[in-house]
């Protein structure tokens, strides 16, 4: 149990620092095309153990989101998105659950469940996360089109980054 959470802590540190030190510095803007934010932090929520209690997922989402907010100077935006994805994860997992259930599998990763399954799961998680995140960031329903465009364009590049991470580290 402790070894699992030590691993989780290290992977959080890596993903978190990569998010706030590297990805935050990348500005992908051409003229008035300003729709891309590279966001990799939800990958960490995806790779938490299946057996994590629901209340812990919610609490972890809130606290880790707050940490990112500190670095992004955006009080509440990442925290609310993290809380939301922590709440939504068990629901999403129950929809994409493989035929035999998760049984002895602890981490819902590519290593255990294959690339196809993981891409489906990661896409749903990331889309839900980004849609909520950008709604909170823009915080006006009047900019619905902008929220959708930001979600779509950020999704494409962020999911590629996440798959890169999964291929390099292949978390068990």
């Amino acid at each position, binding site marked *: 149990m402790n070894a699992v959470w030590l691993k989780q802590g290290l992977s959080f540190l890596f993903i978190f620092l990569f998010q706030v030190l590297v990805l935050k510095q990348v500005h992908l803007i051409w003229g008035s095309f*300003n729709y891309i*934010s590279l966001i990799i932090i939800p990958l960490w929520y995806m790779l938490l153990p299946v057996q994590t209690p629901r209340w812990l997922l919610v*609490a972890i989402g809130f606290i880790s989101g707050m940490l990112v907010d500190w670095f992004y*100077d955006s009080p*509440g935006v990442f925290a*609310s998105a993290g*809380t939301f994805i922590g709440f939504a994860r068990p629901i999403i997992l129950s929809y994409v659950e493989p035929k035999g259930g998760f049984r002895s599998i602890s981490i819902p990763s590519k290593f255990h469940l294959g690339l196809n399954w993981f891409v489906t799961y990661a896409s749903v998680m990331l889309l839900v996360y980004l849609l909520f995140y950008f709604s909170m960031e823009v*915080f006006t329903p009047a900019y619905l089109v902008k929220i959708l465009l930001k979600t779509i364009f950020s999704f494409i590049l962020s999911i590629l980054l996440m798959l890169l991470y999964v291929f390099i580290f292949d978390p068990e």
Partner: protein
Amino acid sequence: MIFDTGFMQNLFAFFYRYAYVFLFLVLEFISIRWIVQGNKEQRAIFMNSSTIISGKLYDRFSSIKHYFGLRKENQTLANENAFLRARLSNLEQELITTRPDSLRDSTYRQRYLLIPAEVDNNSIEFRNNMMTINRGSLQGVTKFSTVIEPNGIVGFIKNVGSRYSSVMSILNSNARTSVMIKGSRTIGNLVWDAGSPMEMNLEAVPKHAFVHQGDTILTTPYSHFPSGHPVGVITKAIVEPGENFYTIRIKLFNDLSKVSQVYVVTDLHKNEIDSIAPPQNLIK
């Protein structure tokens, strides 16, 4: 009997089972409150701690970035030097011709204090962009200071730490900058539509004013920025049918995505001006 043990057990079981839903609602409520309470106390506490924690880390990290930008930095500083030298020699000429011995210079006082600073952390892709600079109250930054570049304006000081400060970029939906058109001195508000970081809108210019494409935009004496500092140039100015105000598009002179060397400007006359006329709410 309603309150038998079975009922209580069920009740506890119910709360235990759905505790995560309540936790979710409470935490979501807290974070949304943070988002909504834009400029209030909570944000200030939040930002101060964030300035302390992230400031140091970003300072380390950005020194690497500054190294790669040195060549361009040098060029900018050399240009500025040349410009200032030209002004200096003009002023020297003026001093000679006005015979300084006949002037009582008690009327002359330094108005603006400029502190050079480096931008450690910057964003442009959000709707509310903020920056961190490596100067704080120990170096003389105050809550009412503004931040400029040699060729444009950058933002407003939001929170002052001892060694770092956070800056609300002009690329922020909460930033309203009072600016004027050079020549006619027509006044308007500079606002950002969260699109290109090089372009902004000029609002509240009445349709009877004379506005032309290519007009230069400067800061006003009423803002906390030094008066007459260059901001940008008008690329489009039209009056939509039925509107009383112009729709004006401005291209900024400076590129805020590449900002690194800035000046913090403190208006030394601020207290005196405020004591005569209460400050207008120029920054929303």
